[in-house]
């Protein structure tokens, strides 16, 4: 092992390894722009960070027709519109429908919506996550507002319930 040149050979290996270490040190810093570029290209970590939420509980074998009804107590003062006469929904599927409420009067009013279901037994299979009927609504004069309703039809809904009705009636708040 004392062959001449061993020392040089050692120094050569050492030099190469030091370069490798230096490159890897630089790589740590290179990860800063690389990370940005990678996220921009793939869209990761930007807008839809939570694309993980996939509903696996949808029963696609069945379709229930949900009829939507909207009524107001005093048609001259209010208008409440359902987005459609009926929409199809799979049990387990998260559904969002946007109702529209408009104050036709020149003064502010408050009111409250009450939901009802037909047939009445359907009520227990409606799982509402968001509904304008949860809160009192205060509208300024001539204000128009979109009111979302989010619900899931329970997977336990009996198969003979092919058509169900979700109906809202809007009542003006009586001042006390």
């Amino acid at each position, binding site marked *: *092992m004392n062959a001449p040149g061993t020392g040089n050979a*050692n120094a050569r290996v050492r030099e190469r390894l030091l370069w490798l270490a230096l490159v890897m*040190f630089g790589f740590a810093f290179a*990860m800063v722009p690389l990370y940005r570029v990678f996220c921009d290209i793939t869209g990761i970590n930007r807008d839809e960070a939570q694309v993980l939420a996939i509903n696996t509980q949808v029963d696609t074998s069945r379709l229930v027709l949900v009829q939507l009804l909207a009524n107001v107590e005093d048609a001259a003062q209010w208008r409440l519109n359902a987005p459609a006469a009926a929409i199809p929904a799979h049990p387990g599927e998260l559904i969002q429908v946007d109702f529209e409420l408009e104050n036709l009067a020149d003064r502010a009013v408050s009111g409250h919506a009450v939901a009802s279901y037909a047939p009445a037994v359907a009520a227990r299979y409606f799982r509402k996550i968001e509904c304008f009927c949860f809160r009192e609504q205060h509208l300024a004069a001539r204000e128009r507002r979109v009111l979302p309703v989010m619900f899931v039809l329970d997977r336990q809904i009996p198969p003979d319930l092919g058509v169900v009705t979700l109906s809202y009636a809007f009542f003006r708040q009586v001042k006390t």
Partner: protein
Amino acid sequence: MNPSMDTPMDKPLTDPHDAGHHAAPAGLWRWLTTTNHKDIGSLYLWFAAAMFLIGGLMAMVIRAELFQPGLQVVQPDLFNQLTTLHGLIMIFGVIMPAFTGFANWQIPLMIGAPDMAFPRMNNWSFWLLPVAATFLIGSLFLPGGAVSGGWTMYPPLYLQGGISYDLTIFAIHIMGASSIMGAINIITTILNLRAPGMRMMKMPMFVWTWLITAYLLIAVMPVLAGAVTMLLADRNFGTHFFDAAGGGDPVLFQHIFWFFGHPEVYILILPAFGIVSTVIPTFARKPLFGYRSMVYATASIAILSFIVWGHHMFTVGMPAGMQLFFMYATMLIAVPTGVKVFNWVVTLWKGSISFETAMLFALAFVFLFTIGGFSGLVLAMVPVDVQLQDTYYVVAHFHYVLVTGALFSIFAGLYYWLPKWTGHMIDERWGRWHFWLSAISVNVLFFPMHFLGLAGMPRRIPDYALQFADFNRIASLGGFVFGASQILLLVVIVKCIRGGEPAPARAWDGAEGLEWTLTSPPPYHSFAKPPEVR
């Protein structure tokens, strides 16, 4: 000047304690200036032992605090400092230096080299370590105490702490420099200083695992250095790499850290594979089964370790595609690891096995490391990991891998090579006591932590809900016994150095390899003339 020329290797030496041209300095000066691989190997091992004592005492305080719910022994702030330092010390101060100590002692002996390739650099690599350790442990006594943000050094906590955080970062830099220098030395030694006839595919498994480990060190220690340098810049120079207030991203730190962190896991375990692959064939009196597949398995584990870091970060809000990639890549590592376990078991098959203490620890390694490997597979599954992230299940997992894995292999290696190093056989009776007490208590200590984690107990907390009290009490009792039984190891080592039955050159009848052709202890300068390997 060329450092490889400054050891006397041109004179055949007769007296093992004659240091050659220069008079051997005595006392402290000898150890400060030594360039001898055996001296430096011993220094590394004694340093690791001292750090093991300090890190172990910290673990005892932690287990005492967790003995029952409520705060009894330490306040939460000190508790967090202790868990952080315990992690840093055990990884950078115990496991890594101990393996480097083995490398220094054994690699030149195993490949027939006169010394390491760069003996002076070797001296530097070692003496940087006590400096780093002083910074790390000394920070406990600074205003505000030591770092308490966890050994993983995540921002924003590490951007907010006091002076001890700067000091810890500095210590990491020094330890990184030490590891890189040590790794360069090891690679150069293995590549250039092998005895004639010692082809790569003839090298002992321990040398192979260390060669690959050294490459891992050179590839990832600079990345860690870069990450902590950015932390330092964010703290002191107004940059915003990780500081969200200035547009930085703390998750980026986790990516960089774990790009280092996962290969680091294999830096901590590959040399253990090497030791176990040496001990088991000796006491099974059969050559290692599947040497070639062992080499390839080690290399593929090392390569795969660069693409799995995301499994530490499943809950940071990573898209499902990346989670799946990291999950499958992680599980893939189980294949080469499985090859290794299979080879060890087949090596035992129909061997004439004897159960010396070294063998007992090696067998316990195979069994218990595999448990740690399996809990790693469990944690690799994304939906499970989302539940178990930051619970005691994770603590159980990495302690099985690092204590009954890496540390047990270090014990096995010590019992195996101490007769070679000291010239005295070890006291097997004390050794067996050390083994059985350790092997039983370590399971009492860590196994209940699986249950605690599954029940939802979070890690890094000094106090906990009442339902976790029973298992914590069991774990603490196991911990105290495990801690106390390490005193036996110290006794065995000291007894072995001081005297005992003289060890023959081939201390174990099944042992193979160049180191066993030398006397026990080997001469201070060995293989001045390279041996012939057939």
